[in-house]
């Protein structure tokens, strides 16, 4: 790194190339054109709370009026000293009531705005969350979950900050500026003109700095993101850094990023400090101009002290909002970026179980039809690939069918199609004789319970995971489900029992325990059809026999589709469907198929060899079924 920075241009070319590639890559979300129309799209969410907002804005105007009347009244009061008896007291009383009014208004004004904003954002978040849950599974396969979480949380928050910080009060500020100018002009237009002689250069200056502050802030943001990403990656990839002994190089590279971050911040400090100090300075300069002008006036016409004081006080009030302007502008900008991202997401068209088939949706099957059927189905996860080719088979009610095949043969895909997690390319999938596309997706999925290969546990407790979907778990049913797979005692023995907390993704449970919870979850639902995708994870022999018992407990007396790996499970099936390279090549009972000496015989021999290798029970990981890639956690 160090050497490269000082080297000549030709050597730097690849580096610039890499940098350019990285810059292009990180561009995501850094939209340069801000479109105020994006903010208008927020209206449907704001509208239900608009009455609060209107009240807030009315209060804002009232408060501004109360604030702006004060210097004027002070001037009047001061002028009355020695002229009007009791004038000072009278002005003081009015002034006090105005101040009380101003401050009394301030809280409801601010709070109403925040309530309206926060509620609107809560509605927006709900909408984003609900929208995400109507996306198709292929959308989740493609999009990192972390990015989606950001849409619901950070991006909506950025919009909300616009309301929370009172950036909308800028409306009031602008009005204040106008009123101050008008009042001062009316009081003494010559002096007002002199006072505001410095205004054009101020505006030019503010505008100049504003642009720079904006770009400085943007740079700080991007440098911060870069630094956090780098550090995060260093921590995650520390094993690689250490194995390659690249600590010094990483430190040098990080130093560049860390310095760039510091420089960017220092630049923004300069602008920030300059902005603040200049406003203070210019406010002083304006006061000086007014006093100078008053001195000039003095020769011909006495300027009242009250007027002078009012001017000085107004000048102070004039510059406060200008100081806040740039900060508020930045907030509005990040709000627009957030809104842009959220609404971009809303444009996504990948609907889960789309209404492609037309007609009425049903929630009842045809009496007497087979429970499950695939009719000449061809399917691929991507348009370019094919996972299943012309697959046809049926599962009768009460039948237990095992799907077997080598890695990538397509057997896991079958279950996803029955649940309509993906759309079939050709042919159709039927549940109780009705095309899955004619079922309402709720009714369709209510007939199934799935035990997946990679068990996913939600944050909560063991019981809440088993009783997924129920707000309060029916403990009797939870226990019953666990008893049927002979796992109740095991889980009760754990600290906390069935109320034991489940950490992120169930990391505090062993693979075997997670499997058992997934079985219990399926049984709790008590579905018509059970889909079991047998796990191939390595477990100890005790857990293995437990799991075998659990499979038996779960499957007995039920229509079941088992994506099987264990010989014991396969042998107990009523029928075996053999998949090979996306096609069904054989079907029959264990004995029939063995006689054929075809693919099944080979598979059987292989599985036999595997279980032999995996003494006493574990299996090597080579036979991991290839499920479509789950979205990686960000």
């Amino acid at each position: 790194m160090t050497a490269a920075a000082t080297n000549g241009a030709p050597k730097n070319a690849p580096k610039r190339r890499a940098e350019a590639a990285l810059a292009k890559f990180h561009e995501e979300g850094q939209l340069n054109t801000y479109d105020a129309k994006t903010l208008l799209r927020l209206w449907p969410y704001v509208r239900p709370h608009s009455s609060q907002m209107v009240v807030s804005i009315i209060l804002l105007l009232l408060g501004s009026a109360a604030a702006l009347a004060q210097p004027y009244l002070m001037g009047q009061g001061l002028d009355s000293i020695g002229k009007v008896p009791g004038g000072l007291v009278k002005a003081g009383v009015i002034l006090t009531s105005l101040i009380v009014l101003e401050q009394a208004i301030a809280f409801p004004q601010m709070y109403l705005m925040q309530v309206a904003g926060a509620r609107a954002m809560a509605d927006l978040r709900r909408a984003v969350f609900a929208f995400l849950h109507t996306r198709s599974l292929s959308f989740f396969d493609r999009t990192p979950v972390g990015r989606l979480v950001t849409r619901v949380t950070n991006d909506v928050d950025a919009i909300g900050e616009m309301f929370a910080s009172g950036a909308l009060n800028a409306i009031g500020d602008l009005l204040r500026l106008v009123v101050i100018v008008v009042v001062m002009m009316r009081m003494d237009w010559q002096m007002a003109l002199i006072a505001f002689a410095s205004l054009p250069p101020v505006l030019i200056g503010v505008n100049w700095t504003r642009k720079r502050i904006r770009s400085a802030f943007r740079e700080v943001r991007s440098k911060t993101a870069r630094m956090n990403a780098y550090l995060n990656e260093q921590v995650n990839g520390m094993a690689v850094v250490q194995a390659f002994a690249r600590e010094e190089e990483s430190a040098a590279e990080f130093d560049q990023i860390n310095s760039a971050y510091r420089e960017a911040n220092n630049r923004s400090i300069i602008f920030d400090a300059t902005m603040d100090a200049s406003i203070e300075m210019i406010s002083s300069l304006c006061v000086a101009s007014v006093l100078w002008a008053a001195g000039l006036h003095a020769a011909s016409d006495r300027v009242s002290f009250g007027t002078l004081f009012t001017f000085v006080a107004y000048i102070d009030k004039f510059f406060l909002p200008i100081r806040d302007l740039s900060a508020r502008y930045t907030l509005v900008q990040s709000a627009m970026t957030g809104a842009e991202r959220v609404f971009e997401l809303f444009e996504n068209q990948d609907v889960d179980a789309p209404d492609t088939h037309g007609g009425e949706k049903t929630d009842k099957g045809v009496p007497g039809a087979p429970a499950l059927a695939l009719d000449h189905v061809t399917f691929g996860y991507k348009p370019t690939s094919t996972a299943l080719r012309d697959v046809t088979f049926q599962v009768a009610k009460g039948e237990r069918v095992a799907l077997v095949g080598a890695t990538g043969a397509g057997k896991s895909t079958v279950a996803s199609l029955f649940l309509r997690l993906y759309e079939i390319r050709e042919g159709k999938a039927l549940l109780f004789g009705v095309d899955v596309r004619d079922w309402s997706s709720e009714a369709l999925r209510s007939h199934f319970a799935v035990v997946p290969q990679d068990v996913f546990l939600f944050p909560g407790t063991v019981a809440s995971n088993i009783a997924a979907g129920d707000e309060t778990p029916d403990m009797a049913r939870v226990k019953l489900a666990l008893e049927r797979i002979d796992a109740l005692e095991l889980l009760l023995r754990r600290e906390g029992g069935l109320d034991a907390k489940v950490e992120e993704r169930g990391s505090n449970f062993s693979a075997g325990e997670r499997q058992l919870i997934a079985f219990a979850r399926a049984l709790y639902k008590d579905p018509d059809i059970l889909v079991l995708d047998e796990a191939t994870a390595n477990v100890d022999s005790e857990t293995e026999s437990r799991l075998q018992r659990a499979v038996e407990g779960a499957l007995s007396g039920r229509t079941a589709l088992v994506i099987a790996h264990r010989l014991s499970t396969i042998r107990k099936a009523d029928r075996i469907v053999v998949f090979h390279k996306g096609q069904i090549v054989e079907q029959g009972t264990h004995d029939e198929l063995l006689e054929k000496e075809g693919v099944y015989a080979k598979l059987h021999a292989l599985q036999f060899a595997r279980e032999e290798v995996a003494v006493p029970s574990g299996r090597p990981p080579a036979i991991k079924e290839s499920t479509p890639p789950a979205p990686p956690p960000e």
Partner: protein
Amino acid sequence: MTDTPLAKRDHPITLKGQLRDKAWIYLAGGGLLLVQQFLMARRDFFVRDAVDAATTLRGGDAKIAALSIFAVSIIAALARVASRYIVFSAGRNVEYELRAVLLDRLQALGPSFFRTMPTGEIMSRATNDLTQVRLLLGFGVLNVISSVFAFASALYVMATISLRLTIASLLTVPLLWLVTRSFSTRLFTRTRENQEAIGHMSDRVLASLAGVRVVRAFGLGGSEAAAFEKSNEKYLEKSLSLARLRGSMGPVMGTINAVGVLIVFWYGGALMDDGAITPGGFVSFWLALLRLSWPLMALGFVAAIVQRGRAGYERLRGIFDAVPEVQSGPLVREEPVRGNVKVEHLTFAYKDKPVLRDVSLEVPAGGSLAIVGRTGSGKSTLAVLLSRLMPTPRGAVFLDGDDVCDLSLARVRGSIGYAQQDAFLFSTTVTKNIGYSLDDVDAPDADAKVKEAAREAQVLSEIEGLPDAFDTVVGERGVQLSGGQRQRTALARALLRSCPVLVLDDPLSAVDAKTEAAILEAIERQKASRTLILITHRVVAARRCDKIVVLDDGEVVATGTHDELAAAPGLYAAFAREQALEADLDSFDADTALPVPT
């Protein structure tokens, strides 16, 4: 580039040390603030003079005073910008230095540390806590200095004009200070609660989306929406509670300030009526009072800043003070490493669970060895112990006859290259990932080397097919390389590395048979130039090595060549049978198998 990473270890890491280190900066900033506040006091006096001159019809005097205000204001503004820049950048320097130290310390720590402190926790310390420390040593210090001077300066002006009015107007000061203090502490608590609520909501959303398959399969859409709504409501409630505090802060402060203004207006007006103060004095006093309110509020915040800064620093200490379990050894060896690796009676336990038991093996320099075993047999642990990526016990692993624990870490890890099983790629370009071990990826020959390594790892054509070929950014957010592509890219990275000993941990778990054969050819070529240790469960890979060690349940159960082991009954032979059947099945074409009509 004056800062070498080595120098960074010398940055002071205590708060006191940092304060001392930046003492001159603070002194300079303080000096400028003193100048600025002095000038502001002058300004107030000039305002008094100007007003008095204007109201008593002395135009010339007013002009001089006005010009003086001009001059003083400009210089004061410059001093203010400079002081802020100086003190804030001191805070930024502290942040910069501590962050560099942080990475330095993290790099020395091993897997056991990272297991106890998850990435999120480390990141929170590197960002939030470090920010608090920066605020303490930048903003906090500036506030203390500037508030003290501003206070003195304003008080001086006010007292000069009228002592009685000063005392009267300061009646509200203790109240303002107390109120700010209590607000700032509560603001901190509520902000934290607010962040916790959004964190909780974020976790909830993450779980719901990551588990979308279960949500679909079990029809959990409704209950997930309800669960989300709960956390959404909770967050709304927390934000509104914060909003109430934030919203009431302004009016409360405003009211207290207004009381001060009223006192000045009423009592000051009366004093002016009596002729005790001049109109100019009145305006000047009023301006000084306005200057006073911000430093007072700032002082109220200081207590919270100090408290948070110290708490943040304590959490950083948790990383700074963590003791690395692997330390560099003292033995200095100048001659190049030949590459003889010897393991003698190595026993290793992870916590109380024994992983390796009395393992012994040897690879001569330039030789090759395969370590075969099923998952969980301890073969990966053995691999990482060779280069001390975990705490290798003393007297168990030798490199060219020297105990690796005696050698410097740079020598051990620099010469024993280890490529891990789960391919972690950095989110940068393909070139930079593959060329990770190159000192200069911009060197003229680097591109060729990277390309060659990609070719050897059988990933070249796929990389060239990517949108930006070698300049494509990979990684979690990048173009989604498939698992196999990631693994082969990582393999290319390992092959490119020039080290006398190469340890490859299961480099072929996600590749198909044809690619596997081609990669094995490449690995074969590697054998010519260095010592090769191959961790694998694949017999086709193991058979190419001079010697094979079979590991089971942490113990060496067999040693020999492929032919010897394949002939004898045992784990290796079982592996061989299984994999032969697998290959047989794979070569079987679906179309030749007769589909059964249904």
